[in-house]
């Protein structure tokens, strides 16, 4: 069945968007910053995974773990160096800084290794099997299960652990959280660490699944993931997952209908419709401004 196949394609793509969107949504939820550099953390993750696998011969899981750790540290560094000072500045100044950080990361990578793409080596089994007439590769199953497990772990962290509780408290009200004895700085850093680790994981998964990585690879998925985060209701973790999946599936359907060139436009049309008719996203709560 062609449609089952298209659905599978869409969900695989969607799970990558979802992983990146999670980082966006967490950071936005906690400091209300559209972290444009997030897509580039994703790119860094992909390259670390690449060098780990092809350079040092690591397997998929060790490479994934390594990329996550390095990206977590990288994310915290970005936050500490570039964003921390701007916590009380206007949002737009923070946004411009984020754009600056994004360009800096992209072009530093180009400076050090050039702009040419890199091809991920095959690390996962290439066997495919048939499901309701659709060709499903073991890879996609693997990727989907890794993505889902990461999301479940994230839900666990946010809802069951102390740091998760701190994150929720800070995102709700920074001042109140501070008064309650929560170390706000550390909590924000932890948020960046977790969000960036997920982006790093998404990078490795992306590389394995789509093979090609390059220094500017983060730009488009970064914007798409942000769309996904808004779609689901920015700041809401299950929303980012759902938004990512919806976006992936919609893009596949649009392509399948023969409008592939309008695919990106479709993503934005949905975004705008959602924003206009349900401004806080699929899962968002409408909040009223206090007068």
């Amino acid at each position, binding site marked *: 069945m062609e449609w089952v196949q298209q659905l599978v394609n869409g969900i695989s793509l969607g799970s990558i968007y979802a992983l990146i969107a999670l980082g966006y949504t967490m950071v936005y939820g906690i400091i209300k910053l559209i972290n444009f550099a997030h897509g580039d953390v994703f790119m860094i993750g992909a390259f670390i995974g690449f060098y780990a696998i092809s350079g040092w011969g690591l397997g998929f899981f060790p490479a994934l773990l390594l990329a996550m750790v390095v990206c977590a540290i990288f994310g915290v560094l970005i936050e500490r160096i*570039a964003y921390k000072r701007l916590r009380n500045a*206007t*949002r*737009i100044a923070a946004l411009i800084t984020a754009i600056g950080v994004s360009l800096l990361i992209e072009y530093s990578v180009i400076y050090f290794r050039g702009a040419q793409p890199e091809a991920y080596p095959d690390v996962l089994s290439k066997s495919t099997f048939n499901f309701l007439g659709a060709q499903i590769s073991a890879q996609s199953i693997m990727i989907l299960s890794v993505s889902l497990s990461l999301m479940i772990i994230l839900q666990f962290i946010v809802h069951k652990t102390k740091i998760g509780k701190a994150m929720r408290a800070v995102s709700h009200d920074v001042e109140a959280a501070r008064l309650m004895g929560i170390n706000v700085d550390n909590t924000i850093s932890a948020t960046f660490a977790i969000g960036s680790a997920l982006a790093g994981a998404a990078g490795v998964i992306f590389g394995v699944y789509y093979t090609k990585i390059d220094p500017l690879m983060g730009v488009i998925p970064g914007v798409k993931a942000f769309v996904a985060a808004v779609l689901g209701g920015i700041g809401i973790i299950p929303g980012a997952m759902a938004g990512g999946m919806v976006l992936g599936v919609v893009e596949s359907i649009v392509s399948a209908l023969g409008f592939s060139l309008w695919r990106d436009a479709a993503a*934005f049309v949905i975004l*705008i419709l959602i924003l206009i008719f349900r401004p806080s996203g699929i899962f968002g709560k409408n909040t009223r401004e206090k*007068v």
Partner: protein
Amino acid sequence: MKKSKVFWLYAIIALIVYAIVQFMITSDQLDMYYSNLLITIAINIILAVSLHLVIGITGQFSIGHAGFLAVGAYISAICTMHFDLPFPVALFIGAVVAALAGLVVGIPSLRLKGDYLAIATLGFAEIIRIIFLNTDYVGGAAGMQITQMTTWTYAFFGVFITVIIIANFTKSRHGRACIAVREDEIAADAMGINTTYYKVVAFALGSFFAGLAGGLFSHNFYIIQPSQFGFLKSFDILIYVVLGGLGSLSGAIIAAILLTVVSMYLTEFPETRMIIYSLVLIIVMLYRPSGLMGTKEITDYFKLGKRSKGGNLDDQ
């Protein structure tokens, strides 16, 4: 009257500056490189000032300005290349159509605020770009070849008209209404300001001038392609406005000039160009988050009065 004398004095000085530059161009003292640089600066000033009206004055966080630039660029190019209309007419039509696009984008987006509005405008701009990308009439991805028509004269008067109109608009009851919307939308509404109307006006006026800049842009660079109008272009314009200081007209102009010159200069260091550019951006934002001029105008430095227009786009 005295006040109109002052006005004419300044207008005449500006025209003299124009005439001197024009003379230097015609007498070959200024070669193509510098006249092109001046035209590019002029186009960027128009873009910065038009976005300043939307973000700096009205407080509507739009990051899709390149979409309107694209509309103006393509429509005016169609007018001259396909319909053989005179260039000034084409510029005007391009600007009007861009203003209409501004209305189309503005009206549904007005329900949104802050970051949501920002991302919606980004989405609209991308949609506009993709429409041009898929329209074979304007060459699709390969782009459209255009005869060069933009001259220093057109560019100068483009800036002249834009700055006069936007400055005059700002300093009238309509401009105050827009600033009131920026400062506190609910209070503005409660004071009898039709906030929706003024947001739409600001969008349309901003888009009009972005469209004008588009016409000058497309007729200066021989070819336009949809890839030139992506969100990175919108960010460039946004950066002029923020770096100059939100709410400061002269800040936007100064930032547009500075960054255009810096960017032109950096082409000599192709490997490190973008790295330097991004570092400058980060450092300025870290150490001067309110931009170069803050909310002040350059004229404030010459006056003793403490009055100051403008301000930050505060978190609501």
